[in-house]
Each structure stands twice: as structure tokens, then as C-alpha cells.
């Protein structure tokens, strides 16, 4: 698959705000990718992570039932690229833990999100 597009990718989305989740879904699907979720809680997300195959994840830091980091750790360990999508996140803090993750701050434009996804894939490629 081409790195320059998201076509055919399977994207896991964790987002507790419904409209934002809707927006992300629209954006990803418009790009020709498939959305797994969106999941509003980290519990649900974790179940999905364990039971699904996917190529990349878009994770909101604050979910309904707490931080997403435990889930993020699992994803990272499976060497699946992550894009953190949050309103208040200090990248410096996160980059220690997730060196290959990318960030996209809320509110974001669709372009911004797509770029972040692509960047993350790129990152994964070069790292791997």
C-alpha cells in the first residue's frame, strides 16, 4: 500500500465526544479508509485492540473512563502507529513514552488529521 494515501487502511478510533468521533469517521472514510469504532471508553477500545487487526490508531487522550494510555501502550507494543488527538497534551511529555507517535491537537481540520495519519505511517516505516 502506498504511504501517501490512507486508502484501504483500517483505522482504530478512540473518541468520547460523539460529534468529533463522527467527524473523524467522515474524514477517514472520505480518504478511503475503514474505521474501527469509534470507541468512547478505553475499555471498549481495549477489547477492540485485542480482537482486531488494524493498521493505525487515532486516540483521544481523555476518554469517558480515564486516560487512553494503557491502551496506547498495547498498541505501541504491537508496533502499530498512533496519532494522539487531544486538546491538552504536552507532546514533550508523551514523546518519551511514545517516541514514534504523532500528535494532532483539537480542534483539527480534516487535512490536519490526514497529515498526522500519514506522518505516523511514515514514522513507522522508517522505524521499522
Amino acid at each position: 500500500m502506498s504511504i501517501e494515501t490512507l486508502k484501504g487502511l483500517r483505522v482504530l478510533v478512540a473518541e468520547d465526544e460523539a460529534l468529533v468521533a463522527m467527524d473523524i469517521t467522515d474524514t477517514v472514510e472520505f480518504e478511503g479508509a475503514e474505521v474501527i469504532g469509534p470507541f468512547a471508553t478505553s475499555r471498549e477500545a481495549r477489547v477492540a485492540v485485542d480482537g482486531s487487526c488494524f493498521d493505525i490508531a487515532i486516540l483521544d487522550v481523555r476518554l469517558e473512563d480515564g486516560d487512553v494510555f494503557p491502551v496506547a501502550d498495547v498498541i505501541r507494543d504491537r508496533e502499530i502507529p498512533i496519532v494522539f488527538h487531544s486538546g491538552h497534551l504536552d507532546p514533550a511529555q508523551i514523546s518519551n513514552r511514545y517516541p514514534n507517535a504523532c500528535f494532532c491537537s483539537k480542534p483539527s481540520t480534516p487535512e490536519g488529521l490526514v497529515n498526522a495519519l500519514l506522518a505516523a505511517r511514515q514514522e513507522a516505516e522508517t522505524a521499522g
Partner: protein
Amino acid sequence: MDAQTRVAVPVVGVGASAGGLEAIREMLTETNIDTAFAFVIVQHLDPTHQSLLAELLGRCTSMPVRQIEGGEYVRPGEVHVIPPGKKLEILGGRLELTEFSQPRGLRRPIDDFFESLARDQGPNAACVILSGTGADGTTGLRAIKEYGGLCIAQDPDTAKYDGMPVSAVGTGLVDFVRSPSAILDCLRAFFETGGTDRPRHEAASVVADHVDDMCGALREAIGHDFSGYKRTTLVRRIERRMKVLGIETPQRYLERIRGSSEECDALFRDLMINVTRFFRDSEMFEVLDREVVRPLVDGAEAEEEIRIWVPGCSSGEEAYSIAILFADALRGRRDRPYVQIFATDIDERMLATAREGKYPSSAMADIPEDLRENYTIAHDGYFQMSGKIRDMIRFSSHSLIKDPPFSRLDLISCRNILIYFDERLQRQVFPILHYALKPGGTLFLGPSESIGRHEDMFADIDRQARIFRRLEGRTPYPIRLAPDRRGSSSPNRDSGDDSPQRLTEESAPARRLLDRYAPASVVCNRDGDMLQSTGRLSKYLEFPSTNSGRIVVTTVARPGLREVLPTLIRQAVDDRSRTIARDVTVRAEFGSQKLDVIADPLPDGTALVVFRDKAGFDPSDDDDMAELRSTEDATHELEEELRVTRHKLRGAVEELETANEELKSSNEEMMSMNEELQSTNEELSTVNDELKSKVDQVSIANSDLRNFLESTRLAVVVVDSDLRIRNFTDAALEVFPLRDGDRGRYLSDVASHLADDGFLADARAVLAGRDPAIRTIALKDGSRRYSMRVMPYLLLDGTVDGATIVLTDVTEVLDIQAALEEQRERLRLACVIAGIGIWEYCIDDGTVLADETELRFFGMEANDLSEMMARIAEEDRPAVERALRAAVEGQSDFEETFRVERPDGSSISLRGFGRYIAGSGKGRILGVSIDVTREVRSAEQREFLLHEMNHRVKNLFAVISSMVTGAARTASDVDEMARSVRARITALGNAHSLTQATRGSTSVMMSDLAKSILEPFRDGDNVVVKGPELVIGVEKLTAFALIFHEWATNATKYGGLGEDGEGLSLTWSVSQDDQILVDWRERFKTPQPEEDGKVKGFGSRLVEFSITQLRASYEVERTDRERRMTLAIPYAA
């Protein structure tokens, strides 16, 4: 008497000075050419001017008045006047003019002439002293008197100037005091009485017969015996007296003497005349000085005594002359011998004059010039002997012939006395003088005197000068001391023409008769001295083997006779009658003899003792022993007499010596007193200086005190122990209205301006000994307040002598103090109100001092630093400790906020501020703590809220962004899209603004939310919202808001809120299993179309996602008239 040429008439010398002319004129007016006197006028005249005296006097008398030219004889019935500037003398009746030897001012023309006149004319002279100042003539008057002339003085009352007359009268020698006009009569009376016709010697002999009697009378009256005086002198003087009194016969005069003590006195006075002057016979004095005075002084050691006696000193000139010589010889000698001169006389009046030591200025001329200054003190008209000279002489009353003499003398100056004594008396006197002198002592006699027969006692030193040396050899003490008044008189007289009776006849037959046939006899005096004897006396008297010359009959008389004789003789002599002692038995060697003893007094005071045997000689038995007893009486008497005599003598000697000693010691006392006075003077001088400097110091101290008091403006009132005002300062007048005159008033009487009288009680208490009182006291009008101190006024010895009240104006101070107090209170209150705790951390001992607020903060009762620290929240403690340490080290102020957990579980937040304060030791941290709990909570809350807000806003943006993006994907009409998006955003915004932040979460009431969303769609009452109170968490808010907004929007298009709509109702409830059931019902009149189902509108997608977010289950029911949507939301989600 000198040989003289007697003038036929008496020569009257007249002396006058100022005011004299008038007196002379008066006197002479009585005279005429026949007046049988020769007058010589000596008037004090200006030597530089011509005198008109003679001319003037010539007009008042018919007698010729002539100025003397010199050399003329004095003529009777003539007046001779002295010329100016010349000295007048009369010699042999001739008037001689010479030059004055004395300088002007010291001249004595009247004295000179009178003295010359006296010598020349003797009893034929008279002197008259008239008006004048000074004393000229007084000395001359004495000469006239001495030589037998008449002395008259003008009555001082009649004299224009009474000086001379008074001085003359003062001698006591003036015979008559008369007014000038009466003088002539007086002269006549004197010179014409007394019978100048009769031969002198006859007259004299008549007087001479009675002289003894007169002497006796005089002796009785005066106590002095003049019978030893030269007869001629005596007779002359007596005759003169008779002349003066106008008595013709001696008998009458004798009667007069016996009867009048005044006359005795006058006669005595006349007899005592002894003209004397300083350095009389000056050349003899020179020899005396050279030969006697100086050697004596040179040879004397320091402290040794040189004793001199001047008997018969009269008015003292002689004694003073000798004193001057000695004083001059002593001059310059550092350690001097002590010169003592005894000057004696029997004339008290003369002694008085001598003691005073004052003499007329004219007498100064007799004193050698070089001696005047040192030893005399000149005054006006007279001079006085200097004190040191007077101190050398002791004048005393003493009779040379009667009283015990002085003894141990170095020099006796006995001049012109012996000339008055007859031979017998002289013979008595010389042994006295010999006795009185020390061996080698000197006797100084007058020019007319000599040793005579007494060469065994005295040898010449200078015969010319009449200076003799006392020879060695003891003088038997002269017994010539008659204790009683009745002196003896020796019948032995050598004088000329008198022929005394003689007892024995020299013829041989007479002698034979006396020796053999007549009874034996002796002639003896009253004392028993045998003077003559006749016949054989061996039976009666036992003559001693050695013939010493003097035989005392009463001593040599044999027993039997011895007892009788003394009494017998005495009785006979005293009674002047023949006395017989009958039947006396005298025990002679070989037997006894009975006899009569007859004592027959002789005229001369002796007695003829006749032993008339009565029986034959009776030979004695052996048994006859002379018994001592019989001699007892006589011996006893003699011994008694002797004892008395000795006693008297001793007494006299003792008296003298005592007097001398006393004088010596008093002199020494004087000297030591003088020394003491000197040193006292020195001390006083020093003390004075000290005093002066002390006074200065006190002055300065006073001045300092005054200035000090003034400068401090202290109101001070000092009272004494009776509370009377003693003193006060000016400043005190503010409080007590005092005036200067109030000193002494009682303090309680003074109306003070003070509010109360407490100070009086305080003062009394302090006076009573209590401690000083301090109190605050205000003025009545309250304008000023004072700190009043009442202290005791202490003397140096600590006794309380009063009280001092000091008032210090403390009004300002008190005001400030009050203000300060107020401030402090306010501050305290502020602190309390503000909840500010104050603490103090003492670095030295690591303790803390917390006020009650601070303690309350920590929930503690007492200060306990470690406990306090423990209560600080653990997370904050390190910072607090660090900050505290930093403050202690002075690096920074302490400023920390920390939480305190209290034992009751509560906790507060404190903000502490502290600062290091240096002090004793390591210093302190002073700090405050403020309760900032609320602030902190608020802050925390705000933080939380902000955080929340931040999150929500971010989320909201994301939602809106998504909404816009989503809408843009499906919108065909941009305007429509914009409108619908805008509406949705507005709804969201409204919904979110309803949220209220409470502790821990943000929420909204369902009813508020529903109403808010549906509000824009309401029109009248077509919307019904109903449900129980239900809190919706913020996380559900967006979803509900979007859902309701969409459904409402749809309702306006195709539902209950549209054209055909009949309203909308939104209700909710909570199910039993905690689900929120939302019921949405729309009613419409006609059936509504559904939206295109195939293509989901954006709005419906929103709803879809929102429902998913809520995890709600959704159902919809449609009928023709109603659309109903229900949601079931799990509450917990």
C-alpha cells in the same frame, strides 16, 4: 645757795604768750612808779619782727618800760622786756642776752629765764605765768619754787589762752592763782610778810627750834620723816610756807601743821621739789653711757637680767634718760638681756606724771637729737616716751630711808637726793646703797654729791662724772627698819649755825664727878643703842669681849635689869616723862644689887638712864643662877619684834619678787599670746582665702543651680518641715500662684491650680519618713497634666528638713501614650478580626511565642514549636522549614503558604510572613500568619474550574468544527448550512452557559436545559416541558442539546411546531432501574411526511451519534396525528 647779788627788791619774772599782752597790761595797771618790785617780762615773740611790746606796755603804767639791751642791772620800779629772738638770763642781778641753742619751736624762753632767776635770786624771786598756749614756764616755776621763790599763775578762767596757766597749776606748786589785776597785791602780801627786817639767822633759829616738832607732825600726817633732811633746806622751805600763808611765828605754823592735813600736804609738796630734766648734766651721762651702760650690755648674756634702781625719780626724766641709754645700747642685739629699771619716789603725784611719760615739747631739747626719734613719740605740744622705753621702767612708791631696798642691782642712779639729806641720814643711806648693789655694781650720783666717808664701800670709776664702783664685802643688813612710824632721830647733827644741846660737859671736875661720885648712867636711844655712858657700869651691864662699836644696852644689861630696861626706856621716850623702875635687883657677876632705874627722856628723843643704887652690893650665893626665864620677856619681845620684822621683810621681798615674777610671766604670756595671735592671724588669713574660694564655688554652684532649674523648666517647690514654703522656681508658678513674699507661708494656704490636694498628704507622709511619692496630677481645668514627685529634703547628716515637690509636665507624653494605647488596641482588634496570628521565633533557644490567634490556627493551647511543625501538612513542611532556615540566616524574609492539619480533622491554609530581627543573642524571627484557607480553596477551585472550562471549551470547539465540517459535506445550500450550523452552535452555547460548577463536577438541571433549547421554538404555549428535578452531568449536555435541538427543528419543519402542528411536549422521568426516560411527543393536525430516509441529513446523523454517546436506546412511534420518540438513558453513564 650760790653766791648772789641780792637785788634790793624782789625780782618778778613774768611769762606770757598768746593773750598775754592783755593780762600784762591788767597786771601792770595796778603798778606805779613807786612799786617796790622789778619786773622782767618774757613774752613769746616772733624773732623776725620788731617788737612794740615795751612801747605798748609803757602806756599802762607809770613805771618805765624798757626793752632789754643786755648787760643792764635789774632796777627796782622798772619793767624790763625781753627782745625778740634772744635768750634771757640773769646773773648777779644783771640781765644777759644770749642766743638760743634750741631751734625755733623748741625754745623755752620763760623756763630759761625762770630757772636762771631762781638760781640767781632764790627766795627773792617770784614768777608769774600768764595767758598762753603750751607749757613754757612750768619747769621754770619748779625751779623758782625749789629755790624758795613765790609762784603765781593767772586764773585760767580769766586767761584768753589757758594752756600755760593750767600747766603751771597742774604742777601743784603754784602758791597763788589770781586774776591779773590781783597779782600785785598777792606779791606785796608775800614779800612784805615774814619780816624781812629781822635778821635771817634769827628768824631761822626760831624756826629751827621747832623743826623737829614740825617734822614730827609731818611724819604723823604723811608718814615720811624729814628730820634727816638738811636743816637749812627744811627751814627755808618752812619759812616760805609761812610767808605764803602769812604766818609770823613758828609756833603758829606748828599749830597749823598739826591741825591741817592740807597744810601738811602743801609743806610736803614744797619739801619734795626737785627740779629734774632729761640727761641732766649731759656730759656725765655720756661718761655713764661709755663706762657703765655699754659695758654692762655687752657683757650681759641673752636672757640675763640687768637691774637698775633710780630712787627719788620724781617726774621720771632721769629714769627715762637711763632707759634710753640702755635701749640704744641694746639696739641691734639679736639676743638681748633683759633690762629692768626700778624708779621710785615717795611723791605719788610725781610718780603718776612719770608713769604717763608725757612731757612738754620744749623738754625734747634735753634729749640728744639722735635718740629722739626712736624713743619718743611727738604729739602736738607734748611728746610721750615710746612704749618700749616705758616698758623698761617700773615706777613705784618707795622710801629710800624707810622701805627695804631693792637688791642685786647693777646700777643705782641716786642723783640730787643725798644733797637733801643730813650727814646722819646719808650715813644710813650709803650702806643701803651698798647692800642693794651687786658686787662690782655702779653708783651714779649728782654733781654736788660724793661718797664722803664711805670709801670702804665705794671706789671711784670716774670721780668727775660721779660714777662709783661698789666694793666687795658684805654689808650687814641695815637694821634701820623702824616698823612703826616713830622713826628715830639722831641727835648727831653737823649743820652749821645750829647749836644742839649736848649731854656731857667736857670739864674734868664734872667728868670726875660723873665718873666716881654720881650714879652711873648711860644715854641711849629708844631702841637701846648706847650713845654715851658715865660711871662704872660693870655692875649693870656686861660688855662683850669684842668691841664692835655698837652696844645695845638692853642686850648687854645684866639679868634683873634686862627685863626692865627696854620697857623703861621706851616708856620714858614715848611718854616724854621721867620714868622710874623701883627696886630692881640686878644680878651681877658676884652678887646682886638693888637699885632704882630712872629713865629721863632727853629732848632729842634719847633717854638718860640712871642706875641709882639703893642698897649695898649683895654678894651672891652660888645658888643664884640666872634663870633663863627672866630674860624671856625682853628676849621674847625682841624676838617677837624681829620675827615681825623678818616677816614683814619677807613679805615685802616676796611681794616684790612675786610682783616681778608675775610681771615676767604676764610678759611671757603676752608674748606667747602675741605669737598665738600672729599664727591665728595667719590661719584667719588662710581661712579667709579658703572662704573666699568657697564663696566663689558656692556662687558658681548657685548660679549653675539657678540656670539648671531654669533650663529644665521644672516646677519645684521646697517646703520646710512645717510645710511652709521655703523656695520655688519660676516654672512652679504655672501650678501654684506664688509671689516672692509667699516664702514662709503655709503651702496649704496657697490655692493651687491642681485638681486635688493630694500633694499635701504626700508631703506630710514624706516628712514623716515614708518613701518618696510619685503620682500623676492634673490641673483643675484639665489643660495640663503633671508627674508629681514628692521627695524628702535631706540635710548632709541625713535628717529630713523639709520636702521637695517636683512637677514635670507630662501632658504631651500622656497624650502620646494614650494615642499609642489606642493604636495598639486597634491593631490588636484588627489582628483578631483579620485573623492574623502573631508569632515570634527565638533563635537562641529555638522556642516560639505564638499569640492566641496563632495558637488557634494550629488548634493548640500552648506554645510548642515541634508540635506546630508536626501539624503542618507533610507536603508543605519541607518548604516551610527551608524558608524558616533561610530567614534565620538572614538571607530572605520568610514567606510561605502551608496547610495545617488540626487534630479535630479540620485543616486550614496559612500564609506566614516573617522577618529576622537582630537582638540580644542570635535574634528572633518576628512573624504573622494569615488564614488563607478560603483563598486557597478558591484558588484550587478556580484552577479546577479553569481546567474544566479549558477542557470543555476545547471540546466545544472540536464539536463545532466537526459540525461545520460535517454539515459542509452534505450541504447543498451554503446559506442554509450556515443558518443551521449557527442555530446549532447557539443552542450549544446556551446549554453550556447553564452549567454551574459545584464541588467536583459541572452539571445542569434537566428542566433548565430543556427550556433553554426549546425556548427559540416556543410560540405561546405550544411547548410543554415537564419532569422531576434531574441533574444532568456536563458530559451529557452536548448530546441532549443537539438531540433536542434537532428534534425541535424537525418539529418546526414537519411536526408539532410546524404549520399543522399542535404543540410539543417534552417530559422525562427516572425509572426504577435508574434510567432516565425521555418522552418526546409532537401532535399535528394532519399527517406529516417523513424525511427522506435514504440520505440521512446531517442533523439526523448528529442525533444518531448523540444517542450513541448517551448510550441510550431509542424508539420512535409514528401515527397520523403524533410522533413520539423515547429515550432511555442509563443514569450512571
